[in-house]
């Protein structure tokens, strides 16, 4: 076996060519690592964005029956009422929290001094804050149980509404009018980027207690019933149970799923997850292909090196080098070049991530990009792939070198 030192010197003799090839591998490994890391970070950033809508949520809304039930005709509209919330919460153990939600179109007149415009008004219970992740900015709070029980005229503002009404002035504790009725601001929604929303963006909504909403509008039937589950895997069982409870209360067949509309965010998240996973598999394959192309470059150059050194290989054989000694040199060379280029690629990748962290980005972009970092599993995967492909890169030239006929090789000019 030839020493590593001799090997390194041989590579040094060919440093320009070997360097170019290693640069190719560097690109390959950089590309693969970037693709995989961004993919993984996109996955976790996406589900984080989903969670900001609310963790394991179901949302029910009005519908109409499609089949007769208990002597009642089909096509009968079913509307949710405030009492449905506590009924579901009490009867279904998989449910961790429930909130009613009233939601108006963008036509509620809002005024503060000279500033007047129409906005979306939402009436909810205190539990809505936790279910829909209504995180207040500092010095504010979300609506409380007391606000709801006492029909208080308090409001929790989307940050854009706050900007429109108060500009850069502090809003908490200040008042403004809804339908000409004065309300006090208790909190402002912290800037939030969500992967989904319904009936307008949260930053453009004014949230008030459901009780106050009813007082103000005279409305009784709900827009939505927002339900949070304890476990994400419980959705099918919980949905069945909720339809049974509401079917009994509103007298429809629990299997008649059009009687009440429903959005299943758990399922939605699962779907997006599967899509992103599929996408990640694809980007991984693309990255591996890129790496393979660069490794084929290594194989190619080493093959040329074998061809150019045919006579030297013949001499080495005459001097007693065994075919395996000749072959192992090539394999080691392929491995060294590939690993050197690949590890440099990984290092460069980590450097790029560090720079990326410091670049100020639009928060919407950042919400999906996240803060990618080179992880050990990714690094180890890339290094093992490099090892494997590097060995393969050396293999073909090695086979060629080892199979040389010493007589023929010595004749080579």
């Amino acid at each position, binding site marked *: 076996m030839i*020493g590593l030192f001799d090997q390194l010197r041989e590579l040094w003799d060919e440093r320009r060519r070997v360097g170019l090839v290693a640069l190719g591998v560097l690109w390959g490994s950089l590309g693969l690592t970037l693709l995989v890391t961004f993919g993984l970070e996109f996955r976790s950033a996406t589900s984080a964005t989903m969670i900001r809508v609310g963790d394991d949520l179901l949302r029910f809304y009005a519908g109409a029956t499609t089949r007769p039930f208990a002597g009642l005709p089909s096509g009968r509209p079913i509307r949710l009422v405030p009492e449905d919330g506590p009924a579901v919460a009490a009867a279904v153990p998989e449910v961790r929290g429930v909130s009613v939600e009233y939601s108006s179109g963008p036509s509620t007149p809002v005024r503060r001094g000279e500033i007047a415009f129409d906005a979306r008004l939402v009436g909810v219970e205190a539990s809505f804050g936790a279910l829909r992740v209504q995180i207040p900015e500092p010095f504010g709070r979300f609506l409380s149980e007391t606000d709801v029980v006492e029909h208080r005229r308090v409001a929790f503002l989307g940050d854009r509404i706050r900007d429109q009404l108060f500009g850069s002035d502090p809003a908490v504790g200040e008042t403004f009018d809804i339908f000409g009725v004065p309300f006090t601001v208790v909190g402002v929604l912290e800037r939030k980027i969500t992967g989904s929303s319904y009936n307008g963006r949260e930053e453009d909504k004014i949230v008030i207690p459901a009780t106050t909403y009813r007082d103000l509008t005279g409305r009784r039937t709900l827009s939505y019933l927002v339900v949070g589950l304890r476990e994400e895997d419980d959705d099918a069982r919980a949905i069945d149970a909720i339809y049974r409870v509401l079917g009994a209360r509103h007298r429809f067949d629990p299997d008649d799923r059009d009687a009440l509309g429903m959005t299943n965010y758990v399922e939605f998240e699962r779907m997006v997850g599967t899509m992103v996973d599929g996408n990640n598999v694809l980007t991984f394959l693309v990255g591996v292909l890129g790496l393979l192309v660069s490794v084929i470059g290594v194989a190619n150059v080493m093959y040329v090196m074998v061809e150019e050194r045919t006579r*030297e290989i013949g001499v080495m*054989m*005459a*001097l*007693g080098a*065994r075919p*395996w000694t000749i072959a192992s040199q090539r394999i080691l060379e392929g491995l060294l070049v590939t690993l050197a280029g690949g590890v440099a690629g990984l290092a460069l990748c980590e450097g790029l991530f560090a720079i990326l962290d410091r670049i100020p980005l639009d928060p919407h972009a950042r919400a999906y990009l996240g803060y990618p970092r080179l992880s050990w599993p990714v690094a180890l995967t890339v290094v093992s792939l490099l090892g494997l492909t590097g060995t393969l890169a050396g293999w073909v030239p090695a086979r060629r070198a080892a199979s040389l*006929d010493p007589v023929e090789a*010595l004749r080579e000019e």
Partner: protein
Amino acid sequence: MIELRGIGRDYASGDATVHALSDVDLEIETGEMLTLLGPSGSGKSTLLHLLGCLDRPTHGSYHLLGRDVSRLDRNQLAAVRGEQIGFVFQRFHLMPRSTALENVALPLRFAGVGARERRARAADLLRRVGLEDRRHHRPAELSGGQQQRVAIARALAADPPLILADEPTGNLDSQVGGEIVDLLLELHSEGRTVVVITHDEGLAARTERTVRLLDGRVFADERVAPDNG
């Protein structure tokens, strides 16, 4: 030392078969020095390749130091070459990127000798061929005669009993060539078996035995008193 019996070597050339060697019987005693003479195409290179275990005969048997080496596999042949045979080539065949010292040490690398001992032995051998002050020079920085001396030192690295020289003076002028022949004679006088291929009748006259090949057969096998006056 060497016993060839009914050696033949055929090559396929298109549809035809070329008989490079046919029915060669040859015995070489330990410590003998002989010249293989013959015109181009007479089969002397083929015979040298067979003797050097670089190639295997199509027919016949080859016993080297009592061992039949005609049916060994590639690895076994490599081991035989590394241990028993030292090669000297017409075009020297030194490694262009290695120094004289590294070139001489190369066979020891394949034999698994440690780096320190390799260097020491290579330095001794370079001293022996009179090139100790050239040990860190690369082949391109050496004259033809010096390169051939390095090659001879390399052939001696593993201390083989058999030295095979293929036109060792073919690329040298007559004076330098003469010095190389002196060196080969010196190896012979130490008891090594030396086989030299040549066109050069003058060189042949300096060895005690000359085997002449023609059309792949042994044409004459002459023993004469060497003219080394």
